[in-house]
């Protein structure tokens, strides 16, 4: 009996120290989440402005010709998968990776850019064609990183090694909900529905519509990747906070249960000891 109470005590101690760690993680990611959200709020207007500008140009002028604008789906897609470098964040990484390989029909044709160690490891292990990786930047993405990724992706597209670029990132819906999203970056789909609304408005392009698009589209790719990475990093912290909160709650439950067992075992030991003493005294009479 004595050994059993000792065992339980040891278990309680171990669960307790795990709980301390998860609690600390929770606090850290709460603080990081706040910072990541602030960053997201700052970059959001830029991101939105470019998005609207590109769509306005494309919907206002139907005659624009560019190799980056077309319809129809490609057979040689490139997926840019944004995940974290570290685990312990619930389903965050695996959801993004699953989203990326959801529509992959053949492993030979699909290429991958891994942003974050988790995507790199998982995709490599499963035999996907990871042609480039960007590690240790996903927690604090800088515009420079996004520009690099955009540059190598568009150069692949220009060489014809791929025919479409998808960005897979985790959309930040709220602090308790994040959603893995697959966004088609290039070629840009022409917005079709806006024809009636403002098609009549004449927009001037200086020097020409093609020149403007040639400049804006790389910007659009860069800023969308940047926005996606910023949003993903906020989502990562939110996911980790939730995961750690659940872990701490779980640990608390386990400790409660174990304490109950411990008390029961202790009481049983005392009762047994008393009955042994009483039995011994009876026998001496």
């Amino acid at each position, binding site marked *: 009996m004595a050994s059993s109470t000792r065992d339980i005590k040891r278990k309680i101690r171990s669960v307790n120290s795990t709980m301390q760690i998860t609690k600390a993680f929770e606090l850290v990611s709460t603080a990081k989440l706040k910072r990541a959200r602030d960053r997201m709020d700052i970059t959001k207007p*830029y991101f939105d402005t470019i998005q609207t500008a590109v769509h306005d140009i494309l919907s206002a002028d139907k005659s624009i010709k560019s190799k980056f604008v077309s319809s129809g789906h490609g057979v040689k897609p490139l997926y840019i998968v944004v995940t974290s470098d570290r685990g312990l964040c619930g389903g965050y990484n695996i959801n993004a990776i699953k989203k990326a390989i959801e529509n992959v029909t053949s492993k030979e044709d699909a290429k991958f850019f891994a942003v974050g160690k988790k995507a790199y490891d998982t995709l490599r292990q499963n035999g996907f064609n990871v042609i480039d990786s960007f590690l240790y930047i996903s927690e604090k993405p800088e515009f420079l990183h996004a520009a690099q990724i955009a540059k190598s992706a568009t150069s692949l597209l220009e060489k014809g090694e791929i025919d479409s670029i998808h960005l897979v990132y985790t959309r930040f819906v709220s602090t308790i909900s994040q959603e893995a999203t697959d966004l088609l970056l290039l070629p840009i789909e022409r917005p079709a529905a806006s024809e009636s609304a403002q098609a009549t408005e004449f927009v001037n392009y*200086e020097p020409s519509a093609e020149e403007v698009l040639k400049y804006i589209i790389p910007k659009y790719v860069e800023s969308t990747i940047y926005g996606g990475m910023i949003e993903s990093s906020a989502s990562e912290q939110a996911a980790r906070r939730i995961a750690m909160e659940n872990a701490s709650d779980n640990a608390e439950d386990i400790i409660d249960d174990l304490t109950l067992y411990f008390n029961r075992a202790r009481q049983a030991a005392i009762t047994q000891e008393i009955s042994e003493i009483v039995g011994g005294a009876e026998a001496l009479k």
Partner: protein
Amino acid sequence: MGKKFKLDVVTPDRVFFEEETDMVIVKTTEGDIGILYDHEPLVAPLRIGSMRVRMEDQTFKWAACSAGFLTVSGDHVTVVVDSAEWVDEIDMERALEAKRRAETRIQEGPEKGTDLVRARAALERAINRIKLREVR
């Protein structure tokens, strides 16, 4: 003072300017253009250069901008640039340092794996900042 329109200047790391003004002058790839109220709809790429915004007291406030683009639609003007700072915000030492760095990179040339296009752009940005700071 003429009629006013809304001017937004956004960069990746902040909303730089979000107020009403009656005139802004920016440097497009074709040269400087001034935008007044009721300008026709326009989209144009911008070069590294300066931006002038006319303030309430009719003086121009100068800012250093790097590349980006400009959209004018109705009474709303949006300038999207990679970076922007008011002239009095320019960090002279940092700009000089950036200029030196870019120059050595260009001198070392491509054999050291330098991205010449990027180094030239960095040099142009640094010179733009230094020039604006000195003149204004």
